[in-house]
C-alpha cells in the first residue's frame, strides 16, 4: 500500500475537523494537508489547539470521556474516525512522543519491544528476534552505544534526554508512518534539546513528523513546513521560511515577532 494512490502523497488530511471538550470548542473547521516524509511544525500561543489537534490524530484525546469530534482525519488515505477502525492499528501507524518523557515502568529492553509485542498479538516474540529489533531501534535513535550494557535496567533511571530518545525508539519497531511530537524538548536542557532535534531531523524522510513547539527558533530550524494556529483555527500553513520571512497574515506576523504568546 506504500506507493499507489495519489492521495498518499499526503500523510495526514483533515476535513472540517471540529472538536469540543464538553461545551468548550477547541478546534474550528480544521482543513489541513500535511505532506508525507517531511517535518511540519505547529506553532501558536498556549491554548490555541495545537496539542489538541495533535492528540486527535492518534485519537488519544478520547481517553477523556467528554471529548466530541466531528469531521474527518485521513492518515495515508484511511479515515481513522471511521466505524470499523481498530484503535490499536491507528496507534501502530501514528506514534506519539509526549512533552515529558514517559517511559513505562519496565526495563529499557521491554520499553522498546512493548509496542511490537502488542502488534504481534498472541504470537510470541523469540529472544533473538527481540534482541535484533531492540538493537535496531536503539541504533536508530543513537542510544545503542550508551545503553547496550544495561538493557535490563529500569528505563526510569536514564537521564531525561535518554528517556526521550527511548520514547522515540519504542515507536519505531512497528514501523509507523507518522510520528506526532508534542513539545518533545520542553523538559530537556539545551544540550538534550540539540541532541533530540538532531535525531528528529535524522528521522525525516522515513517518517512523517508533526511537531508541536513553543520555541519558534526550533520551528524555524527544525521544520520544512509550518502551521500557525490561533484560537482553535489554522491561520497559515506554508513552507517554514515563507512563514517566518513573509507571513501572509497580520496575526502570524504579530506572533512571530513576539507581540503575544
Amino acid at each position: 500500500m506504500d506507493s499507489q494512490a495519489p492521495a498518499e502523497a499526503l500523510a495526514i488530511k483533515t476535513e472540517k475537523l471540529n472538536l469540543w471538550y464538553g461545551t468548550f470548542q477547541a478546534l474550528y473547521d480544521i482543513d489541513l494537508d500535511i505532506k508525507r516524509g517531511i517535518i511540519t511544525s505547529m506553532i501558536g500561543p498556549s491554548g490555541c489547539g495545537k496539542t489538541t489537534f495533535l492528540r486527535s490524530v492518534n485519537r488519544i484525546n478520547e481517553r477523556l470521556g467528554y471529548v466530541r469530534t466531528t469531521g474527518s482525519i485521513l492518515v495515508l488515505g484511511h479515515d481513522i474516525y471511521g466505524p470499523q477502525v481498530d484503535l490499536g492499528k491507528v496507534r501502530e501507524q501514528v506514534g506519539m512522543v509526549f512533552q515529558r518523557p514517559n517511559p513505562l515502568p519496565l526495563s529499557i529492553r521491554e520499553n522498546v519491544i512493548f509496542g511490537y509485542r502488542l502488534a504481534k498479538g498472541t504470537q510470541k516474540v523469540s529472544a533473538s528476534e527481540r534482541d535484533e529489533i531492540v538493537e535496531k531501534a536503539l541504533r536508530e535513535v543513537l542510544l545503542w552505544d550508551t545503553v547496550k550494557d544495561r538493557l535490563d535496567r529500569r528505563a526510569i533511571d536514564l537521564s531525561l534526554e535518554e528517556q526521550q530518545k527511548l520514547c522515540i525508539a519504542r515507536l519505531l519497531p512497528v514501523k509507523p508512518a507518522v510520528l506526532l511530537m508534542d513539545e518533545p524538548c520542553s523538559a530537556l536542557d539545551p544540550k538534550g534539546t540539540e541532541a533530540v532535534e538532531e535525531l528528529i531531523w535524522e528521522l525525516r524522510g522515513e517518517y512523517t513528523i508533526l511537531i508541536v513547539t513553543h520555541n519558534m527558533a526550533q520551528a524555524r530550524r527544525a521544520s520544512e513546513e509550518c502551521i500557525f494556529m490561533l484560537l482553535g483555527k489554522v491561520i497559515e500553513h506554508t513552507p517554514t521560511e515563507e512563514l517566518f520571512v513573509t507571513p501572509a497574515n497580520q496575526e502570524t506576523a504579530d506572533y512571530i515577532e513576539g507581540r503575544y504568546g
Partner: protein
Amino acid sequence: MGGVSAIIFIIGIFIFITKEGLPFLLGRFDIVEFFTSPRWRPTSEHNPTYGALALIAGTASVTGLAMLVAVPFSLGAAIYIGEFATGRTREILKVLVELLAAIPSVVWGFIGLSIMNPLIIKLFNVPVGLNVLNAGFILGLMAAPIMTTIAEDALKAVPDTYREAAEALGATRWQVIRRVVIPASKNGLVAAVLLGVGRGFGETMAVLMASGHSINLPTSIFDSVRALTATIAAELGETAVGSDHYRALFTLGIFLFLITFIINLTADLVVRGIRKK
C-alpha cells in the same frame, strides 16, 4: 505523639498478654503437644491437654478459603473502580465498599448463622451448615472491602502518564492494566492481600458464629472447625483467673499476636518496596 502512643500501646498489650501467658509457657506448656496434638481439652478433670493443632488448622482453613473468595473479588472490584468506573458510579461504589467495611462482625456472624447455614444444608445436602465453607465465605466477604480499598489505592498511585503512554503505543485498556498497571502496583496489591489475611486470622465473632465451633481437623469444607480467636472468646470468661486453662488461652493470644504482627510487618515492608529488586 500519635506514633509514640501507638508504640507504647502495642508494647503494653504485648507485655500484658505475655505476663498472663508466661507462667504457662514456662511450666505446663509442651511445645510438641501444642503444635501437633489436635486435643484441646483444658477442662478435663483428670488429664487436661492443650493441643492447639485443630485450632490452628481451623483458623488456617477458614482464612485460606476466605482468601480464595476475597482475593479475586476484591482485586476485581479494585480494578473496576480504579480503572473503568468514572464520575458518579465510581464515587457511589467507593462509598458502598466503605459501608461494607463498616458492617459489624456480629452482623456477618448472624448472616452466617441464619442465612448461610440453611442455604448450605439445602444446596449441598449436608447435615450441618456451620462449617469451613460458611465461615470462610463470610470471612471472605468481610475481608474484601478493606482489601478493595487498599488495592484501589495502589492502582491509583500508578501515574496516569504510564497508562497514556501504553495506550498511545496501541494497548487496549485491558492490556494497559495487565502489562503496566498491575506490575507497577504489585507491592500495594500484595500488601492488600496480606492485610486481608491478617484480618482473617484476627476475626473472632463472625467465625465463632459461622464455623460450628467444634474441635476438628477439617478434611473437607463441610467440616465444622474451631478458630484460635473464637476459642479465646468463648472460654476466657469461664476460666478461673490464674489457672492453667486461663494462661493457656493467653498463650494462644501470644501466638495470634505474633502471627498477625508478622503478617502486618511483611505487608508494611512490601508497601515500602523493601523487596524491590
